[in-house]
């Protein structure tokens, strides 16, 4: 990698909260531009260049157009990093993966849903499901979360620039809860996805803030083995229950698909 690598940000279907978290680094964003050369960042810049080494990709892939753009980014970049739940595991976008797509369109567009069948209505195309980047292209690294955590993002870039390996930790959010000295959500009589959600970057913030873990960082590598068993035993829950219930973020991950051919487009 060059001394001051060129980096670019790209967004697909998402809320752009991960780019916002990067802007929210405030002063530290100025430090960041000392060590990397940002050549494309649509949320904050007019300039754009296709010459970059590291590409950050935010948001899910939901249309043929998205897919073509993603493939182009992949071929331009040496290193592709997915940021945020939408890009790493399809995030909330994948909630509709478990719904009947005809109903999905109808609920949002009413009678106009038929535009998806109209070949002249070019923008009205969508895959039946939402996908993360890894469903279609190789992804070197991931920064999980909805949104990502600014500190974790900085740590990952620093490690990358120093030639280290910014792979993700693989312990459950429960470990972070212990460090934060939170009262366990199960002890409060609720269900929490912490025992099989990948921790190590969010400080269990949702539990710390009084809510429960919703699973936004995705599952640990192997939910059957890497589970935080203490909690499951104490409160008599199974991994299967956790995988199948209360899943706002796991619709794709529960049943990951890696289409060899582009999915059929509804247009």
């Amino acid at each position, binding site marked *: 990698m060059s001394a001051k690598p060129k980096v670019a940000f790209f*967004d*697909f*279907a*998402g*809320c*752009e*909260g*991960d780019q*916002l*978290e990067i*802007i*929210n680094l*405030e*002063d530290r964003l*100025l430090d960041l*531009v000392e060590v990397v050369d940002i050549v494309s*960042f*649509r*949320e*904050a*810049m*007019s*300039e*754009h260049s296709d010459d970059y080494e590291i590409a950050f990709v935010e948001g899910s892939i*939901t*249309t043929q*157009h*998205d897919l073509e753009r993603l493939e182009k980014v992949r071929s331009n970049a040496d290193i592709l990093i997915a940021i945020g739940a939408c890009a790493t595991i399809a*995030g*909330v*976008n994948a*909630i*509709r993966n478990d*719904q009947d797509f005809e109903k*999905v*369109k109808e*609920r*949002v*567009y009413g009678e*106009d849903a038929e*535009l998806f069948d*109209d070949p*002249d*209505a*070019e*923008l*009205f195309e*969508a895959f039946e499901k939402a996908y993360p980047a890894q469903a279609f292209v190789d992804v070197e690294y991931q920064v999980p979360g*909805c*949104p990502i955590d600014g500190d974790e993002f900085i740590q990952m870039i620093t490690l990358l620039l120093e030639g280290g390996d910014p792979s993700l930790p693989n312990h459950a959010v429960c470990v972070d809860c212990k460090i934060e000295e939170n*009262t366990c959500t199960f002890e*409060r009589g609720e269900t929490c996805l912490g025992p099989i959600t990948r921790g190590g970057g969010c400080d269990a*913030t*949702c539990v*710390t*803030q*009084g*809510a429960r873990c*919703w699973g936004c960082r995705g599952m640990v590598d192997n939910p059957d083995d890497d589970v935080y068993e203490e909690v499951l035993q104490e409160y008599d829950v199974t991994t299967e229950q956790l995988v199948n219930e209360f899943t*706002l973020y796991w619709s794709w991950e529960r049943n990951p698909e890696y289409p060899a051919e582009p999915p059929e487009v509804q247009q």
Partner: protein
Amino acid sequence: MSQDISIEGDLVTRVEGHGEVLVNATNGELEECEWQVVESPRFFESMVVGRSWDETHHIVSRICAICSATHTMTALKAIEDGLNIDVSRQDRKLRKLVLAGETIQSHVLHLGYLALPDLAGKKSVIPMADTHEEEVKTVIRLHELGNDMLRTFEGRASHGQRTIPGGFTQIPDESELKEIETALENSWDDVEAVVDLILSLAEQLPDFTRETEFISLTHPDEYALYDGVPYSSDTGELDLDNYEDIVNEHVVEQSTAKFTKHNRKSYMVGALARVNNNYDQLSPKAKEVAESFGLEPVCHQPFMNNVAQLVETAHLIENSLDLIDELLEAGLEEQSDYHKPDVDVTAGRGIGATEAPRGILFHDYTFDEDGIAERGNCVIPTNQNHANIQHDMEKMVPTMIDQPQDQIQHTLEMLVRAYDPCISCSTHYLDIEFVENENEGE
């Protein structure tokens, strides 16, 4: 002088989401002028269906990160309306502080990171860190102030986790309130610096006027952001229960997004609409800022939306100080760290409206007796402004048709950015007709 112009398919950068401007003129005659919106549909109104009432706000906050707290709050108001859930006075004040924090961070982001480079003739804020170091640091400090408020009241700068139906899981303690109070008090120098900076560049704001209708919330006792009823500058107070008759979402042949209209062919929402409709309730310092720019109601210059955001930033700082004073004076009612209000789930339909940084936002949900959502509808401010942007362009382009193409493009992009559109918000998209470029006279 006449020329052929064709600007097509240029992504307007520095706005949230994806917008395109299309202008097509032959021999100085305008043939096409379109404000297009291009983004993959995300189907939020379907995502909430079949899921529980206590997840709705969590899902829809992901419509947009910059206004995630307002989406959360509007969803909560709708859920609370539908399920008859009460919210305490204290919690309402704390929610107003959440909205103030979000609006400050959003306005400063727009003014400092997105609009200022236009005025200063720069491509982005990043090179400005060298040429305008002090100014950029000031903008960053103010932006951080908004985010610190969000962290204090909502737990996180975006997609906060503390606001839930019926109140908060957790609230700040008095010492945290006092910290924010001090930060707000210390921010006046920064606000004044930004006011001076924008004043010095204000002549760069294109001088353009087009009469339109302004829709926002209004409230008898306060500058309305959280509480209030819808209000039109043309027709007065409006009925929230019939919000569908306020927005009249409709299909326009040459556009991708559903447009809205009320009393005229288009209306405007956002900071300028609020300042126009509720000017008298602005705080003293906010009025001073407005006066220094000559902004007085009713102002029909869309570019003044930037100034209105600055006026509101001053107002929100003063208003937040008042709210914190009131909370401290009354003494904070304690609540446990994992608080969860008792809610009796019933079937019902609820509608909520809140002022997002970009304008009035409507959410509408219907729940069955188990609290499972059967239907959802969100009408987002950016969509309500699309028609107004389109009509502004139609009036503006003929007046600049002799200017160089890149100048026209730049001015139109500035116009779009003045509305601060958050296009990732726009949940409804409709047909688009791609117009062939005709450039025959070349």
